[in-house]
């Protein structure tokens, strides 16, 4: 008995990573701003404030732009999916998940990023 024509594969990992791009960007932003702030405050001492502020602002802007791109231009996922997934309904579903996750991630990134404007870079108020 011959096997069905080929073993179907839908390249799960690439599509999953793109669908989860929003929270993944949030993870990277969170890790970098926390990591940079923690290390810079120990290593740079007097110059730390400038570098902490600069890196947080840059990272926040970059992350927000990337997240906005996911919301406004979801074509990249749709292009990747169309080559791998036959049913349009599933592409629409994954694309919707990606965009909504990106929107929620904007809240997380924004809330982390703006705290810089209210608190000292390295000091503790305790």
């Amino acid at each position, binding site marked *: 008995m011959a*096997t069905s024509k080929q073993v179907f594969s839908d390249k799960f990992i690439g599509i999953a990573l793109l669908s989860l791009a929003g929270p993944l960007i949030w*993870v990277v932003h*969170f890790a970098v701003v926390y990591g940079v702030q923690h290390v810079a405050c120990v290593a740079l001492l007097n110059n730390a404030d400038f570098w902490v502020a600069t890196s947080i602002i840059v990272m926040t802007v970059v992350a927000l732009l990337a997240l906005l791109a996911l919301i406004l231009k979801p074509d990249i996922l749709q292009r990747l999916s169309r080559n791998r997934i036959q049913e349009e309904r599933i592409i629409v579903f994954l694309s919707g998940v990606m965009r909504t996750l990106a929107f929620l991630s904007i809240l997380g990134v924004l809330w*982390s990023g703006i*705290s810089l404007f209210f*608190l000292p870079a390295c000091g503790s108020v305790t």
Partner: protein
Amino acid sequence: MKKITEQEAALPNSLPRPEGEEEQLLRIWYAPTGWRWFTAVNNTTVGLLYLGAAFVFFVLAGLVALVMRTQLAVPENHLVSQDLYNQLFTVHGTTMMFLFAVPAMEALGVLLLPQMLAARDLPFPRLSAFAIWAYIIGGGVFFSTIFYDLAPKGGWFMYPPLTLTEYSPGDNADFWLLGIGFIEISAIAGAIEIIVGILRTRPPGMSLDKLPIFGWSMLVFAGMIVVAFPAVILATMFLEIERSFSWPFFTAAGGGDPLLWQHLFWFFGHPEVYIIFLPAAGLVSMIVPTMARTPLVGYKLIVVALIATGFFSFGLWVHHMFATGIPSLSLAFFSAASMAVAVPSGIQVFAWIATIASAKGRFQLNTPSLFVLGMLFIFTVGGLTGVMVAMVPFDWQAHDTHFIVAHLHYVLVGGMVFPLFATFYYWAPMVSTRMLSERLGKWSFWLMFIGFNLTFLHMHITGLIGMPRRVWTYSEASGWGPYNFVSTVGAYIIGAGVLVFIIDMMRNFRVGKHGMSNPWQAGTLEWLPTDVYSTRSIPHVTSLEPLWDQPNLAEQVEAGQHYLPNAPTGWRETIVTSPIEAKPQYVIQMLGPGWMHFFAAVFTAACFLLLTIKVVVPALVCGVLAIVCFLVWAWELDKGPAKGPIDIGAGFKLPVYVTGPVGHGWWAMVILMLVAGSLYFAYLFSYLYTWTVSPGVWPSDAASLPRLQWPVVSAVLFIASAAFFAVAKGTLPEPGEKSLLTPLLVLLGALLGVFAVYMEIWCQWQTGLRPTESSYGALVYMAGVLDGELIFAVLIMSLFVIARHFTGKLDRVRFASLENTNLLIYYTVVQALIGLFMIHGFPRII
């Protein structure tokens, strides 16, 4: 490849089924009884065992809580000693979190998922059974320590320095560290099973947009376990090594930092709250539409909310460390994440309310619904106080008071216990031949609901007027007496509610081969007619609620008119489908009942527990016996392609053996690598964090480091090791032939890896660095320990692969065991190279 619409047209297959087909299924999928019951692997048998054991731990931990509440009922009480009280609250918290909450959810995964996905079983049934027995044995021994004055006393979070040997001598803390570490491994085994099961054993047609919400929640739950649990495993390794061998990870005098424990523990501990809550939320999302007789409002938004909650929950760990003196800006990042996570949690609550509202009065108010409504109230209150403690200034006031005790119980009991009781009443008919009693169920609900609020609502005030957590007793002058007395009365009322439920179970819960036939008129597949083989045939799914939208589906499935109505290989089988679209790919041949997973669990538990009481040689003997059991078990896993391809119906002829990224074994190994990667990430964090705390113990010049040639040699050996394995795969002989080159390359590859680890440790030793002298030394040698563990696993797997080759079970077609070994060595080499760069490069850079 056929288009999906062609299968829809081909099914149901109304041709009569051959005689004896169902009898063969019954014979193959039999559930052992008597003394062979221990060998059972059927998901309903082991799932019920798992759930039952978790419930027993819930009752035991609840009884412990009653003793504590009795002690606190009146001021200056001496019912129990201070020392015993410390053991009681540690065992209560540990048991509820590690032995009840997470296992109960994994148990529901094992029990419900195969039915919801209409799979014959999860893809690694013996792995589930192993995880369950390991948990029962390890959990049982851990809990019993309370009876021998051997229970830990450091709280469920076991903060050092209190838990270091100087302040916690004896074996009490070790029972926690080794016992819980072992149970975490069991949880990870279950998580791997759940991830592969959900992504690969869905029925044809059930694409991701048709996956039941419980499936989504369990997917996120298991993914979170994979990322979160390794951090606490590493932390327990650090603490146990410090206690046993004096490597100063947490001792400030040696350059360590007790706060490192808090970081690692809460990186696990806060997501743990959501690990517990998300599956429960998934259960509620399944119950509400059935009771409202309408599809769930906002399916896609709930999927998004589950995923977002899973991610954001990892940015909350310092939420528990606001009072530790961390810089304000760092606190703000975590405070922001604490608020961000409230948004997706809110989405789910509003979706449930909207679904109930859209029922327009058709919502059925029965026992499961009552528990769901109770959950909505209690969890929402817990969520609101959660937002309060996410505010740093408020947290400083409420930290370590009974306000926090009230908050966490509102979150956990509302977010998990009430949904669990709703689950008991809702899904009991799936496995029981009788419904649970509505009358007793309502009594149980009202007693638990009133009792709970009587215990915990005013506990917020008890905390705000100053009563700290974990105090054994208090003075009358404090004014806390009346509040505590009411709390104690409430606790006994909760106990009465649970007792009524137990009576209901004893009177009405009767496990049979067949559950009841969809008594709630639900729309999902777990309510299809089943027997020991699960469903008679595996349905083709076209909607989110197939039983509502596909007329006569239950009758067709029961008549064997859908996929795989038989057992063509003569083994236990289920269909593997593609992870996104759920298109049929191949058929797994699964293992049936056996002793090896049971003995593997017994000997692994014995090894850990004997190590705890420092009986080293018998512990090592048990470790060896456990490895032997694993190998004997694994020997049967790879059954080869001989019996395929097979016809599953609707024109599909599928292979029964695949390798590479399509195979479920490959997926399990990749997830295991993610676990190892997460553990190593926690190690790298620990290294860098400790440096920021104690840069003075790091080498100040390159002269005190090993010469660069040594790490280069070590790196070359690691890379060569991986290369040997890669070449070995290319030298595999044709089926029926043997080649000495393949086993030789595999053996050499493994030995090169061993030598590379030895070289790394040796070159550090030559510089005079010792792991006991500073946190730097401890972390340097820890890298070798972590690499060594993996290389040891590679060595054992290599010997296994070589044995398979010489017995004719490894060739160019049948090479899954070598493929998995190769994956592990590739990962190990990448990890080791990163470690070498960190250990030898970082001190040279700073």
